[in-house]
Protein backbone atom coordinates (compact mmCIF):
# COMPACT_ATOMS: atom_id res chain seq x y z
CA UNK A 1 0.00 0.00 0.00
CA UNK A 2 1.23 3.47 -0.76
CA UNK A 3 2.30 5.80 2.00
CA UNK A 4 3.58 9.32 2.35
CA UNK A 5 6.50 10.85 4.18
CA UNK A 6 6.37 14.56 4.94
CA UNK A 7 9.67 16.30 5.64
CA UNK A 8 9.26 19.44 7.71
CA UNK A 9 12.19 21.77 8.26
CA UNK A 10 11.70 24.13 11.18
CA UNK A 11 13.45 26.84 13.10
CA UNK A 12 14.53 24.36 15.76
CA UNK A 13 15.00 21.05 13.98
CA UNK A 14 13.72 18.66 11.35
CA UNK A 15 10.68 16.41 11.59
CA UNK A 16 9.59 13.38 9.60
CA UNK A 17 5.84 12.77 9.47
CA UNK A 18 4.57 9.50 8.02
CA UNK A 19 1.18 8.08 7.21
CA UNK A 20 -0.44 5.45 5.04
CA UNK A 21 -2.40 6.29 1.92
CA UNK A 22 -5.41 7.41 3.92
CA UNK A 23 -3.35 10.24 5.40
CA UNK A 24 -5.46 10.32 8.51
CA UNK A 25 -3.21 8.91 11.23
CA UNK A 26 0.31 10.24 11.42
CA UNK A 27 3.53 9.27 13.13
CA UNK A 28 5.80 12.14 14.08
CA UNK A 29 9.56 11.58 14.37
CA UNK A 30 11.96 14.26 15.49
CA UNK A 31 13.25 16.74 16.19
CA UNK A 32 16.36 15.82 14.30
CA UNK A 33 19.24 18.28 14.78
CA UNK A 34 17.39 19.84 17.69
CA UNK A 35 18.09 23.50 18.18
CA UNK A 36 19.38 24.06 14.64
CA UNK A 37 17.57 25.78 11.81
CA UNK A 38 16.58 23.27 9.18
CA UNK A 39 15.93 25.39 6.14
CA UNK A 40 15.07 22.51 3.84
CA UNK A 41 14.87 18.74 3.64
CA UNK A 42 14.23 16.87 0.42
CA UNK A 43 14.33 13.25 -0.69
CA UNK A 44 15.76 11.78 -3.86
CA UNK A 45 13.30 10.44 -6.40
CA UNK A 46 15.96 8.04 -7.64
CA UNK A 47 16.30 6.58 -4.14
CA UNK A 48 13.56 7.63 -1.72
CA UNK A 49 15.59 6.48 1.25
CA UNK A 50 18.15 9.15 0.42
CA UNK A 51 17.20 12.46 2.03
CA UNK A 52 19.29 15.60 2.26
CA UNK A 53 18.89 18.29 4.91
CA UNK A 54 20.26 21.80 5.23
CA UNK A 55 21.22 22.39 8.87
CA UNK A 56 22.33 25.88 9.77
CA UNK A 57 23.09 28.09 12.72
CA UNK A 58 24.06 31.67 13.33
CA UNK A 59 26.72 30.38 15.68
CA UNK A 60 28.18 27.46 13.78
CA UNK A 61 27.42 28.03 10.12
CA UNK A 62 26.21 25.50 7.59
CA UNK A 63 26.07 21.73 7.75
CA UNK A 64 24.66 19.25 5.28
CA UNK A 65 23.08 16.10 6.65
CA UNK A 66 22.13 12.99 4.74
CA UNK A 67 19.96 10.03 5.54
CA UNK A 68 20.19 6.77 3.62
CA UNK A 69 17.37 5.06 5.49
CA UNK A 70 14.40 7.29 4.93
CA UNK A 71 15.13 9.74 7.71
CA UNK A 72 15.71 7.38 10.60
CA UNK A 73 19.42 8.09 10.94
CA UNK A 74 21.53 10.96 9.66
CA UNK A 75 25.15 11.83 9.14
CA UNK A 76 27.26 14.44 7.51
CA UNK A 77 28.20 12.97 4.10
CA UNK A 78 31.76 11.75 4.04
CA UNK A 79 31.82 10.92 7.71
CA UNK A 80 31.54 7.26 8.51
CA UNK A 81 28.86 6.41 11.09
CA UNK A 82 30.38 5.81 14.50
CA UNK A 83 33.86 6.63 13.32
CA UNK A 84 34.96 9.79 15.08
CA UNK A 85 38.60 8.77 14.62
CA UNK A 86 38.47 9.57 10.94
CA UNK A 87 41.15 12.06 10.00
CA UNK A 88 40.32 15.43 8.52
CA UNK A 89 39.18 15.77 4.94
CA UNK A 90 41.87 16.74 2.49
CA UNK A 91 40.28 19.27 0.21
CA UNK A 92 36.60 18.68 0.57
CA UNK A 93 33.95 18.73 3.22
CA UNK A 94 30.19 18.36 3.19
CA UNK A 95 29.70 21.85 4.56
CA UNK A 96 32.27 23.69 2.49
CA UNK A 97 30.64 26.07 0.02
CA UNK A 98 33.36 28.15 -1.56
CA UNK A 99 32.51 30.55 -4.35
CA UNK A 100 34.34 30.08 -7.60
CA UNK A 101 37.24 32.53 -7.63
CA UNK A 102 39.19 30.87 -10.41
CA UNK A 103 40.79 33.15 -12.94
CA UNK A 104 38.88 31.50 -15.78
CA UNK A 105 35.34 31.64 -14.49
CA UNK A 106 35.21 33.22 -11.07
CA UNK A 107 37.46 36.23 -11.05
CA UNK A 108 34.89 38.83 -12.10
CA UNK A 109 32.35 37.50 -9.63
CA UNK A 110 33.55 39.32 -6.59
CA UNK A 111 30.75 41.70 -5.68
CA UNK A 112 27.03 42.27 -5.95
CA UNK A 113 24.92 45.30 -5.17
CA UNK A 114 24.35 46.14 -1.51
CA UNK A 115 21.31 47.86 -0.01
CA UNK A 116 22.83 51.30 -0.47
CA UNK A 117 23.75 50.68 -4.10
CA UNK A 118 27.43 50.10 -3.47
CA UNK A 119 29.15 46.89 -4.39
CA UNK A 120 29.51 44.23 -1.68
CA UNK A 121 31.52 40.98 -1.61
CA UNK A 122 29.71 37.71 -2.00
CA UNK A 123 29.59 36.04 1.43
CA UNK A 124 28.28 32.54 1.91
CA UNK A 125 25.68 32.36 4.66
CA UNK A 126 23.51 29.26 4.34
CA UNK A 127 21.80 26.77 2.07
CA UNK A 128 18.20 27.75 1.44
CA UNK A 129 17.12 24.91 -0.82
CA UNK A 130 18.35 21.42 -1.69
CA UNK A 131 17.26 19.77 -4.93
CA UNK A 132 18.29 16.17 -5.53
CA UNK A 133 18.74 15.06 -9.12
CA UNK A 134 15.74 13.26 -10.57
CA UNK A 135 17.88 10.35 -11.74
CA UNK A 136 21.02 10.08 -9.58
CA UNK A 137 20.83 9.98 -5.78
CA UNK A 138 24.42 11.18 -5.49
CA UNK A 139 23.85 14.30 -7.56
CA UNK A 140 22.23 17.15 -5.69
CA UNK A 141 21.98 20.91 -6.09
CA UNK A 142 22.07 23.54 -3.37
CA UNK A 143 20.69 27.05 -3.65
CA UNK A 144 22.56 29.28 -1.26
CA UNK A 145 22.68 32.75 0.25
CA UNK A 146 24.43 34.90 -1.00
CA UNK A 147 22.82 33.82 -4.22
CA UNK A 148 24.63 31.04 -6.02
CA UNK A 149 24.05 27.49 -7.17
CA UNK A 150 26.24 24.60 -6.05
CA UNK A 151 26.27 20.98 -7.14
CA UNK A 152 27.53 17.82 -5.53
CA UNK A 153 28.05 14.62 -7.48
CA UNK A 154 29.27 12.55 -4.55
CA UNK A 155 26.23 12.48 -2.33
CA UNK A 156 26.96 15.78 -0.65
CA UNK A 157 30.55 15.04 0.38
CA UNK A 158 31.81 18.02 -1.61
CA UNK A 159 30.24 20.96 -3.40
CA UNK A 160 31.25 23.02 -6.40
CA UNK A 161 29.69 26.19 -7.67
CA UNK A 162 28.00 26.43 -11.05
CA UNK A 163 29.41 29.88 -11.44
CA UNK A 164 27.86 30.55 -14.82
CA UNK A 165 24.78 31.69 -12.92
CA UNK A 166 26.51 34.52 -11.09
CA UNK A 167 28.70 35.15 -14.10
CA UNK A 168 26.15 35.45 -16.86
CA UNK A 169 26.35 39.23 -16.78
CA UNK A 170 23.87 40.71 -14.32
CA UNK A 171 25.36 39.27 -11.12
CA UNK A 172 26.90 42.53 -10.05
CA UNK A 173 23.44 44.14 -10.16
CA UNK A 174 21.74 41.59 -7.92
CA UNK A 175 20.71 42.97 -4.56
CA UNK A 176 19.34 41.38 -1.42
CA UNK A 177 15.88 41.97 -0.09
CA UNK A 178 15.36 42.46 3.61
CA UNK A 179 15.41 38.68 4.02
CA UNK A 180 18.69 38.22 2.22
CA UNK A 181 19.71 37.22 -1.28
CA UNK A 182 19.39 33.54 -1.91
CA UNK A 183 18.64 30.92 -4.51
CA UNK A 184 15.41 29.48 -3.14
CA UNK A 185 13.90 27.62 -6.07
CA UNK A 186 15.54 24.94 -8.20
CA UNK A 187 13.38 23.14 -10.76
CA UNK A 188 14.89 20.50 -13.02
CA UNK A 189 13.14 19.66 -16.28
CA UNK A 190 12.41 15.94 -16.24
CA UNK A 191 12.18 15.83 -20.02
CA UNK A 192 15.41 17.69 -20.67
CA UNK A 193 18.32 17.04 -18.30
CA UNK A 194 20.16 20.09 -19.62
CA UNK A 195 17.39 22.49 -18.68
CA UNK A 196 16.83 23.85 -15.19
CA UNK A 197 15.08 26.85 -13.69
CA UNK A 198 16.12 28.72 -10.56
CA UNK A 199 14.83 31.78 -8.77
CA UNK A 200 16.53 34.32 -6.56
CA UNK A 201 15.28 36.86 -4.08
CA UNK A 202 15.56 39.60 -5.08
CA UNK A 203 16.98 39.13 -8.56
CA UNK A 204 14.41 37.09 -10.45
CA UNK A 205 14.13 33.84 -12.37
CA UNK A 206 16.84 32.28 -14.54
CA UNK A 207 17.13 29.32 -16.88
CA UNK A 208 19.92 27.16 -18.15
CA UNK A 209 19.67 25.05 -21.30
CA UNK A 210 23.15 23.57 -21.14
CA UNK A 211 23.28 21.80 -17.81
CA UNK A 212 24.19 24.83 -15.75
CA UNK A 213 27.11 26.24 -17.68
CA UNK A 214 25.30 29.33 -18.89
CA UNK A 215 22.17 31.06 -17.70
CA UNK A 216 19.76 33.72 -18.85
CA UNK A 217 17.30 35.88 -16.94
CA UNK A 218 13.70 34.98 -17.72
CA UNK A 219 11.79 37.90 -16.27
CA UNK A 220 10.11 39.50 -19.25
CA UNK A 221 6.55 40.40 -18.33
CA UNK A 222 7.19 40.81 -14.63
CA UNK A 223 6.20 44.19 -13.21
CA UNK A 224 7.56 45.27 -9.85
CA UNK A 225 6.62 48.73 -8.66
CA UNK A 226 9.13 48.59 -5.80
CA UNK A 227 12.17 48.85 -8.08
CA UNK A 228 13.20 51.91 -10.08
CA UNK A 229 12.42 50.30 -13.42
CA UNK A 230 9.36 48.08 -12.86
CA UNK A 231 10.12 46.14 -16.05
CA UNK A 232 13.83 45.67 -15.43
CA UNK A 233 15.59 42.56 -16.61
CA UNK A 234 16.52 41.68 -13.03
CA UNK A 235 15.64 42.88 -9.56
CA UNK A 236 12.26 41.20 -9.16
CA UNK A 237 11.46 39.62 -5.83
CA UNK A 238 10.33 36.19 -6.95
CA UNK A 239 9.03 34.24 -3.98
CA UNK A 240 8.54 30.83 -5.51
CA UNK A 241 8.01 29.02 -8.81
CA UNK A 242 6.23 25.73 -9.48
CA UNK A 243 5.94 23.43 -12.47
CA UNK A 244 3.96 20.35 -13.42
CA UNK A 245 6.34 17.77 -14.71
CA UNK A 246 4.22 16.89 -17.72
CA UNK A 247 4.42 20.47 -19.02
CA UNK A 248 7.91 21.70 -18.33
CA UNK A 249 7.47 24.92 -20.30
CA UNK A 250 4.56 26.06 -18.14
CA UNK A 251 5.63 27.69 -14.89
CA UNK A 252 3.61 29.39 -12.19
CA UNK A 253 5.20 32.07 -10.04
CA UNK A 254 4.25 33.67 -6.76
CA UNK A 255 6.02 37.00 -6.87
CA UNK A 256 6.28 39.51 -4.03
CA UNK A 257 3.05 40.76 -5.49
CA UNK A 258 1.37 39.08 -8.48
CA UNK A 259 0.80 35.47 -9.38
CA UNK A 260 2.33 34.95 -12.80
CA UNK A 261 2.36 32.32 -15.51
CA UNK A 262 4.56 31.50 -18.46
CA UNK A 263 3.76 29.05 -21.25
CA UNK A 264 7.10 29.31 -23.01
CA UNK A 265 9.72 28.36 -20.43
CA UNK A 266 9.95 31.85 -19.01
CA UNK A 267 10.43 33.77 -22.25
CA UNK A 268 7.42 35.85 -21.24
CA UNK A 269 5.14 35.97 -18.23
CA UNK A 270 1.60 37.19 -17.76
CA UNK A 271 -0.37 37.83 -14.61
CA UNK A 272 -3.00 35.32 -13.45
CA UNK A 273 -3.84 36.83 -10.06
CA UNK A 274 -7.45 37.22 -11.14
CA UNK A 275 -9.90 37.36 -8.24
CA UNK A 276 -7.43 36.58 -5.45
CA UNK A 277 -8.16 38.73 -2.37
CA UNK A 278 -4.48 39.68 -2.40
CA UNK A 279 -1.85 38.52 -4.84
CA UNK A 280 0.91 38.70 -2.26
CA UNK A 281 2.14 35.41 -0.88
CA UNK A 282 5.05 33.06 -0.74
CA UNK A 283 4.04 29.47 -1.50
CA UNK A 284 2.70 28.10 -4.78
CA UNK A 285 2.33 24.57 -6.07
CA UNK A 286 0.66 22.51 -8.78
CA UNK A 287 -1.68 19.54 -8.38
CA UNK A 288 0.08 16.25 -9.05
CA UNK A 289 -2.35 15.08 -11.74
CA UNK A 290 -4.02 18.25 -12.99
CA UNK A 291 -1.50 20.61 -14.60
CA UNK A 292 -3.97 23.50 -14.63
CA UNK A 293 -4.80 23.21 -10.93
CA UNK A 294 -2.62 25.43 -8.78
CA UNK A 295 -2.58 26.47 -5.14
CA UNK A 296 -1.47 29.62 -3.32
CA UNK A 297 -1.89 31.01 0.18
CA UNK A 298 -2.74 34.72 -0.05
CA UNK A 299 -0.98 36.75 2.61
CA UNK A 300 -1.56 40.34 3.66
CA UNK A 301 1.25 42.78 2.99
CA UNK A 302 3.13 45.21 3.29
CA UNK A 303 4.95 43.58 6.12
CA UNK A 304 1.97 42.22 8.04
CA UNK A 305 2.51 38.83 6.44
CA UNK A 306 -0.45 37.01 7.90
CA UNK A 307 -3.76 35.82 6.43
CA UNK A 308 -6.38 38.42 5.61
CA UNK A 309 -8.81 38.99 8.49
CA UNK A 310 -7.15 36.22 10.47
CA UNK A 311 -8.68 33.54 8.22
CA UNK A 312 -6.23 30.98 6.93
CA UNK A 313 -7.25 29.98 3.42
CA UNK A 314 -5.65 28.19 0.55
CA UNK A 315 -6.82 29.38 -2.84
CA UNK A 316 -7.12 26.99 -5.75
CA UNK A 317 -7.40 27.69 -9.43
CA UNK A 318 -8.48 24.88 -11.76
CA UNK A 319 -8.02 27.03 -14.80
CA UNK A 320 -4.32 27.71 -14.57
CA UNK A 321 -4.93 31.00 -12.82
CA UNK A 322 -7.28 33.99 -12.94
CA UNK A 323 -10.26 32.15 -11.45
CA UNK A 324 -9.64 31.25 -7.83
CA UNK A 325 -11.71 29.64 -5.08
CA UNK A 326 -11.03 29.68 -1.36
CA UNK A 327 -10.45 26.39 0.44
CA UNK A 328 -11.10 26.74 4.14
CA UNK A 329 -12.76 23.60 5.48
CA UNK A 330 -10.70 22.55 8.48
CA UNK A 331 -8.49 25.64 8.48
CA UNK A 332 -8.68 28.38 11.14
CA UNK A 333 -11.56 30.76 10.44
CA UNK A 334 -10.52 33.40 12.93
CA UNK A 335 -7.59 34.77 14.93
CA UNK A 336 -4.95 33.17 12.72
CA UNK A 337 -1.87 35.30 12.19
CA UNK A 338 0.73 32.91 10.85
CA UNK A 339 2.64 32.96 7.60
CA UNK A 340 3.28 30.23 5.05
CA UNK A 341 6.80 30.50 3.72
CA UNK A 342 7.92 29.93 0.15
CA UNK A 343 9.13 26.34 0.49
CA UNK A 344 6.43 25.27 2.93
CA UNK A 345 3.89 23.80 0.49
CA UNK A 346 4.04 20.47 -1.33
CA UNK A 347 1.85 17.86 -2.96
CA UNK A 348 1.91 14.08 -2.95
CA UNK A 349 1.26 11.84 -5.97
CA UNK A 350 -1.35 9.49 -4.64
CA UNK A 351 -4.40 8.98 -6.85
CA UNK A 352 -6.28 11.46 -4.71
CA UNK A 353 -3.66 14.18 -4.63
CA UNK A 354 -2.70 15.38 -1.16
CA UNK A 355 -1.75 18.99 -0.46
CA UNK A 356 0.42 20.01 2.49
CA UNK A 357 1.65 23.23 3.98
CA UNK A 358 3.37 24.38 7.13
CA UNK A 359 3.05 27.65 9.01
CA UNK A 360 5.27 29.88 11.06
CA UNK A 361 2.98 28.97 13.96
CA UNK A 362 4.21 25.40 13.84
CA UNK A 363 1.22 23.71 12.22
CA UNK A 364 1.53 21.32 9.32
CA UNK A 365 -1.79 20.93 7.54
CA UNK A 366 -2.70 18.12 5.17
CA UNK A 367 -5.53 17.77 2.73
CA UNK A 368 -6.01 14.23 1.38
CA UNK A 369 -8.59 15.39 -1.17
CA UNK A 370 -6.91 18.03 -3.28
CA UNK A 371 -7.75 20.83 -0.89
CA UNK A 372 -11.43 20.18 -0.16
CA UNK A 373 -10.79 19.43 3.52
CA UNK A 374 -7.87 20.06 5.78
CA UNK A 375 -6.62 18.79 9.12
CA UNK A 376 -3.45 19.46 11.05
CA UNK A 377 -0.86 16.69 11.16
CA UNK A 378 0.83 18.51 14.02
CA UNK A 379 -0.04 21.79 15.67
CA UNK A 380 2.88 22.83 17.81
CA UNK A 381 6.16 22.47 15.98
CA UNK A 382 8.65 25.32 15.85
CA UNK A 383 8.10 27.75 12.98
CA UNK A 384 7.98 25.72 9.77
CA UNK A 385 10.44 26.81 7.08
CA UNK A 386 9.83 24.06 4.54
CA UNK A 387 7.59 21.12 3.70
CA UNK A 388 8.37 18.42 1.19
CA UNK A 389 6.48 15.20 0.53
CA UNK A 390 7.61 11.81 -0.64
CA UNK A 391 5.06 9.39 -2.08
CA UNK A 392 6.21 5.88 -1.28
CA UNK A 393 5.01 2.63 -2.83
Amino acid sequence: MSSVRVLAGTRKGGFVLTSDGKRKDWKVDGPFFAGWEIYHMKGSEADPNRIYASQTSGWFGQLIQRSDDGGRTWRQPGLKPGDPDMTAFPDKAPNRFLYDTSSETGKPLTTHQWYDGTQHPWEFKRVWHIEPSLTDPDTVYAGVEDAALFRSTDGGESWHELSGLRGHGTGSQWAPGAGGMGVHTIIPDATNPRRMYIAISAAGAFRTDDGGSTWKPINQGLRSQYIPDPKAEIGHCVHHVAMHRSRPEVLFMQKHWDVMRTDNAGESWHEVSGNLPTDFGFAIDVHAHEPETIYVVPIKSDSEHFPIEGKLRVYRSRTGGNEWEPLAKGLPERDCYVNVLRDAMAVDRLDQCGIYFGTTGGQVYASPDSGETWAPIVRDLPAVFSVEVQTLN
Partner: protein
Amino acid sequence: MTSIANESGNAGAARIHVAIPYHLRNLAGVDGEVLLEVAPPVTLRNVLNALESRYPMLRGTIRDYATGERRAFLRFFACEEDWSLNSPDEELPESVASGKEPLLIIGAIAGG
Protein backbone atom coordinates in the same frame (compact mmCIF):
# COMPACT_ATOMS: atom_id res chain seq x y z
CA MET B 1 33.64 13.57 31.54
CA THR B 2 36.67 14.24 29.39
CA SER B 3 37.08 12.70 25.96
CA ILE B 4 40.66 11.67 25.30
CA ALA B 5 41.58 12.18 21.68
CA ASN B 6 44.50 11.15 19.56
CA GLU B 7 46.38 8.88 21.95
CA SER B 8 49.33 8.80 19.64
CA GLY B 9 52.00 8.44 22.27
CA ASN B 10 53.78 11.45 20.85
CA ALA B 11 56.18 12.35 23.65
CA GLY B 12 56.58 15.93 22.46
CA ALA B 13 52.89 16.68 22.23
CA ALA B 14 51.07 18.73 24.83
CA ARG B 15 47.78 17.48 26.18
CA ILE B 16 45.26 20.28 25.92
CA HIS B 17 41.79 20.44 27.41
CA VAL B 18 39.24 22.18 25.21
CA ALA B 19 35.69 23.01 26.25
CA ILE B 20 33.33 23.35 23.31
CA PRO B 21 29.68 24.50 23.16
CA TYR B 22 26.76 22.14 23.65
CA HIS B 23 25.81 21.83 19.99
CA LEU B 24 29.38 21.10 18.97
CA ARG B 25 29.65 18.45 21.68
CA ASN B 26 26.57 16.84 20.17
CA LEU B 27 28.05 16.98 16.69
CA ALA B 28 31.33 15.50 17.88
CA GLY B 29 29.61 12.91 20.03
CA VAL B 30 31.42 13.86 23.22
CA ASP B 31 30.01 14.57 26.67
CA GLY B 32 32.47 16.96 28.26
CA GLU B 33 35.81 18.59 27.61
CA VAL B 34 37.93 17.26 24.78
CA LEU B 35 41.51 16.27 25.51
CA LEU B 36 43.78 16.75 22.53
CA GLU B 37 47.41 16.10 21.84
CA VAL B 38 48.90 19.16 20.20
CA ALA B 39 52.39 19.38 18.82
CA PRO B 40 54.23 22.52 19.98
CA PRO B 41 53.98 25.42 19.73
CA VAL B 42 50.61 25.36 21.46
CA THR B 43 48.84 28.13 19.63
CA LEU B 44 45.15 28.71 19.03
CA ARG B 45 45.60 27.73 15.40
CA ASN B 46 47.32 24.47 16.27
CA VAL B 47 44.74 23.57 18.89
CA LEU B 48 41.90 24.21 16.44
CA ASN B 49 43.72 22.24 13.75
CA ALA B 50 44.06 19.33 16.15
CA LEU B 51 40.43 19.63 17.19
CA GLU B 52 39.19 19.64 13.59
CA SER B 53 41.49 16.83 12.62
CA ARG B 54 40.23 14.69 15.46
CA TYR B 55 36.62 15.70 14.95
CA PRO B 56 36.20 16.52 11.26
CA MET B 57 32.48 17.04 11.77
CA LEU B 58 33.46 20.30 13.46
CA ARG B 59 35.30 21.68 10.46
CA GLY B 60 33.75 24.93 9.40
CA THR B 61 31.71 25.32 12.58
CA ILE B 62 34.30 27.31 14.52
CA ARG B 63 36.21 28.93 11.67
CA ASP B 64 34.68 30.05 8.42
CA TYR B 65 35.92 28.05 5.43
CA ALA B 66 36.31 31.00 3.15
CA THR B 67 38.09 33.38 5.49
CA GLY B 68 39.53 31.14 8.18
CA GLU B 69 38.18 33.64 10.68
CA ARG B 70 36.53 32.82 13.98
CA ARG B 71 32.77 32.75 13.64
CA ALA B 72 31.26 35.97 14.92
CA PHE B 73 29.17 34.42 17.69
CA LEU B 74 32.06 32.44 19.17
CA ARG B 75 34.85 33.59 21.45
CA PHE B 76 37.99 32.00 22.82
CA PHE B 77 39.05 32.27 26.47
CA ALA B 78 42.21 31.06 28.18
CA CYS B 79 42.91 31.57 31.89
CA GLU B 80 39.99 33.97 32.12
CA GLU B 81 41.40 36.14 29.36
CA ASP B 82 39.69 36.78 26.05
CA TRP B 83 41.87 35.47 23.24
CA SER B 84 39.29 36.01 20.52
CA LEU B 85 41.17 38.89 18.92
CA ASN B 86 44.66 37.61 19.59
CA SER B 87 46.81 36.32 16.79
CA PRO B 88 46.02 32.64 16.18
CA ASP B 89 49.76 32.04 16.12
CA GLU B 90 50.42 33.45 19.56
CA GLU B 91 51.35 30.78 22.10
CA LEU B 92 48.63 30.07 24.62
CA PRO B 93 49.34 30.49 28.37
CA GLU B 94 51.44 27.86 30.06
CA SER B 95 48.51 26.71 32.16
CA VAL B 96 46.61 25.82 29.01
CA ALA B 97 49.63 24.33 27.27
CA SER B 98 50.31 22.15 30.28
CA GLY B 99 46.74 20.97 30.52
CA LYS B 100 46.02 22.58 33.88
CA GLU B 101 43.45 24.98 32.44
CA PRO B 102 41.12 24.39 29.51
CA LEU B 103 40.82 26.48 26.39
CA LEU B 104 37.23 27.65 26.36
CA ILE B 105 35.26 28.05 23.12
CA ILE B 106 32.12 29.87 24.12
CA GLY B 107 29.04 30.75 22.10
CA ALA B 108 27.27 34.06 22.49
CA ILE B 109 24.19 34.01 24.71
CA ALA B 110 21.11 34.01 22.54
CA GLY B 111 19.60 36.84 24.54
CA GLY B 112 16.00 37.46 25.33
